[in-house]
């Protein structure tokens, strides 16, 4: 399956992220290194996708891993998966960064819409099993669900900004966003 220049990364193999975070919580630096190796591509890729500028994506990645290091002892595995915890921090920090930068946020509607329809960064270096599964599942969303979720998640727009961009009523976008994520969740669960 592997194409030249692509590294296939298993979504489920590799170190157990929950166990690694548990060790990081006890100040284990080697566990932190392993955690970085396990998740840095996911964190950097998401940051890159949201903030777009690679140098800023590196800064966001650094912020994310330092927050993980600092707060590992506060992570409660009973309340969710460690990988989700890290990716949620990554998304929040990336979105905060993009919202701070008005110029980036205020790119015109046309450009934003183009971004949504052509989401393949030219320099992707990792193809993951995850990518295929997520892509398939995203195809099960309606157009409006997909656009709402993508504009919010990958472009950092609030749902009211998404409503303005798509010229739809606020309650419609709110429910489409939720329905879209529920559909994505159900599809991804079905693939396990």
């Amino acid at each position: 399956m592997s194409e030249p220049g692509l590294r296939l990364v298993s979504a489920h193999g590799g170190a157990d992220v929950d166990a690694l975070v548990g060790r990081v919580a006890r100040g284990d630096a080697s566990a932190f290194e392993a955690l970085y190796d396990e998740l840095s591509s996911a964190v950097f890729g998401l940051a890159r996708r949201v903030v777009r500028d690679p140098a800023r994506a590196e800064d966001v990645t650094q912020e994310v891993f330092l927050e993980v290091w600092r707060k590992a002892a506060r992570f409660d595995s009973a309340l969710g998966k460690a990988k989700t915890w890290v990716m949620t921090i990554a998304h929040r920090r990336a979105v905060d960064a993009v919202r701070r930068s008005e110029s980036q946020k205020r790119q015109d509607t046309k450009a934003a819409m183009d971004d949504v329809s052509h989401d393949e960064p030219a320099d992707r270096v990792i193809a993951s099993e995850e990518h295929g599964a997520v892509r398939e599942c995203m195809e099960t969303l309606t157009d409006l669900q997909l656009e709402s979720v993508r504009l919010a998640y990958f472009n950092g727009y609030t749902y009211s900004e998404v409503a303005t961009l798509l010229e739809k009523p606020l309650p419609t976008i709110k429910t489409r966003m939720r329905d879209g994520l529920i559909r994505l969740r159900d599809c991804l669960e079905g693939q396990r």
Partner: protein
Amino acid sequence: MSTDLHTLSGAYAVNALSADEARLFDTHLEGCQACRDEVRELQDAAARMGASESVAPPAALRARILAAADREAQLPPRVTSISAAPSRRWTSRLVAAAAAVVLVLTGGFVALQSQGDDSNVVAATVSQVFKASDARTRTVPTDRGRLVVAISPTLGQVAVRTNGLQPLTGRRVYQMWTIHSGTSTSQGVVENLAAGKVMALPSEGTTVAITIEPDGESVHPTTPPIVTLDPQSV
């Protein structure tokens, strides 16, 4: 709870609420187990969507982040009402901190100083620095309230008491920096105003500053400092 508020779970899971709405929804979540479960599941789905965008970061970033973590203190576990006693991890860290301080006081001082990197003794507590026999202290007024600084050359530490600073509203924090030749290096955020913060005593010519930053830690200051201080002048 109103179904209207409940349907915000999707927008919440992808950080698409305004700060005010997010706070409102956080309050709603505290009393709604079903909502917490739904948010967790939607965040799982969003996280997988995010992870599907994986791109390897530049190799140099790894060393930069590991070095930064090495300088950064970790938070203790949150003490809940169920287990009011400090957990074992935190206790053992305190013991380690005490051991590091003893090492410094019994003659390890010169050796540690010469390493130029005393990240290992960063665990000294604020009161240990204030009580050190050679501690020099100074009260510094700022627009945000009063800051008390203590310097202990033998411990190689700077400590600040931040309980005189105004609590910040919204998702903002006080963050400490060292500034040398115009370059700012984060020394971490002040996680707890009542507790204050300790950092390694920087070399001569380096200034210590505090800024107000968005929650979490900024890599570069995003606001002008509320205070800058030359530790040598304390």
